[in-house]
């Protein structure tokens, strides 16, 4: 969005002229004034352009946005549950279309007169979603019904949210449901139920919730183990992360982690390696797959993975230097130097960590 806004001085600096660029300049002024409103209301994410865009659409000033497209490449992160870690730049066209549809639906809008100027690339998907919303009422966002702050509601309300038929409600409910102890059977039962969901988005959020538990629960661990066999890469990887966090990587999990090292997806390899790195005493069956994956990372110059594998070897074998020398000397001696550098870095990190823990 052209121009900028300074929260300290409340100054908007425009870099386009209204006479030359009427739509773009109008959209920019609206964007910056709404950002100012969010700043004055101390909205935590006022600095994120996508949130400002959504606010603009939500409060009824979003039509000029449909005339400009600021997002060509989304650059999506593999983990679709990470909504805060990798914020988007601006609203893309599909998200804008859905936000416009929601805005129409919450206002009980049946005529599309205010959308006349919206280009068909946005109008068509917006109409599709409005038809869906009008038929199903499937939305977590309902300002027309719920006027009170909704995200600070109590755990009983979140339990009800998770139990709704709406997939959106289930997903968002799972992000707020706190399953804290084995004795809390209602919350635990709800989580176990969602860990058996056939909807991938619900499953992924249920896995996140399970991984955030302070103490592993046998039933939850059993469900996560079953998910290691899922055909969806993201679900398998997330289940492995959760089991690792819960310190529940056992012999059975290790077998799946070994298979993950052979994957073509980096995040699946990472999940497998993370699971295996959480155990200090791995079976010998781990080494052939780990060696192959390590050499692949050397061949593709993926130094992040080289470092991760070397750290893992350091944990698994008594003398990692000799181990790496034996591994590389016959077929890949040219990589020995890089492996040694990675080993030195891994050792330095270990020293830094132990120094920090002593200081604490």
């Amino acid at each position, binding site marked *: 969005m052209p121009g900028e806004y300074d929260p300290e001085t409340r100054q908007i600096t425009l870099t386009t002229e209204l006479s030359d660029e009427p739509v773009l300049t109008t959209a920019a002024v609206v964007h910056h004034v709404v950002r100012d409103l969010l700043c*004055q209301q101390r909205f935590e994410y006022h600095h994120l352009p996508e949130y400002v865009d959504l606010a603009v659409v939500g409060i009824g000033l979003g039509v000029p946005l449909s005339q400009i497209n600021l997002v060509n490449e989304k650059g999506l992160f593999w983990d679709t549950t990470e909504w805060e870690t990798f914020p988007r730049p601006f609203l893309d066209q*599909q998200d804008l279309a*859905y936000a416009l549809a929601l805005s129409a639906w919450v206002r009980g809008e049946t005529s599309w007169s205010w959308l006349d100027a919206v280009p068909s690339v946005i109008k068509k998907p917006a109409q599709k*979603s409005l038809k*869906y919303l009008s038929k199903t009422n499937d939305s977590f966002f309902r300002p027309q019904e719920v006027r009170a702050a909704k*995200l600070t509601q109590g755990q009983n309300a979140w339990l009800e949210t998770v139990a709704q038929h709406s997939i959106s409600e289930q997903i*968002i409910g799972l992000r707020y449901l706190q399953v804290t102890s084995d004795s809390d059977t209602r919350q635990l039962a709800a989580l176990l139920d969602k860990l058996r969901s056939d909807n991938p988005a619900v499953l992924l959020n249920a896995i996140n919730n399970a991984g955030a538990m302070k103490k592993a629960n046998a039933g939850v661990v059993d469900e996560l183990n079953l998910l290691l066999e899922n055909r969806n890469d993201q679900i398998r990887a997330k289940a492995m992360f959760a089991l690792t966090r819960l310190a529940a990587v056992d012999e059975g999990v290790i077998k799946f982690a070994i298979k993950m090292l052979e994957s073509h997806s980096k995040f699946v390899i990472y999940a497998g390696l993370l699971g295996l790195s959480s155990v200090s005493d791995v079976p010998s069956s781990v080494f052939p797959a780990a060696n192959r994956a390590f050499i692949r990372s050397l061949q593709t110059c993926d130094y992040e993975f080289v470092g991760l594998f070397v750290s893992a070897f350091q944990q698994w074998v008594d003398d990692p230097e000799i181990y790496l020398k034996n591994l590389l000397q016959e077929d890949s001696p040219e990589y020995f130097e890089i492996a040694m550098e990675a080993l030195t870095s891994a050792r330095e990190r270990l020293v830094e960590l132990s120094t920090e823990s002593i200081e604490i």
Partner: protein
Amino acid sequence: MAFFKTVPNLPDMEKARIEHALQRLADCLGAEKFLLPYQSLHSMVGIFQAPEQIVEFVGDHLAFDVTDIQLVVEPQVLKKSGGGG
């Protein structure tokens, strides 16, 4: 039996993400702001002579005091690529 199932234009996760973000905004600004009348393109573009008028228009729409907002216009001059001579 339903032959044509209506579906939204976004996948489930993205749909929930947008709804969650809007709820977060509504929790901060108040739900009533998200029910204000929708403004058409013709009510926003082509009728204002100066950007200050747009600031006032947004302030009026939101019942939000915009008097302390400062507006500076510094148009960017596109640099022409250096041709010979």
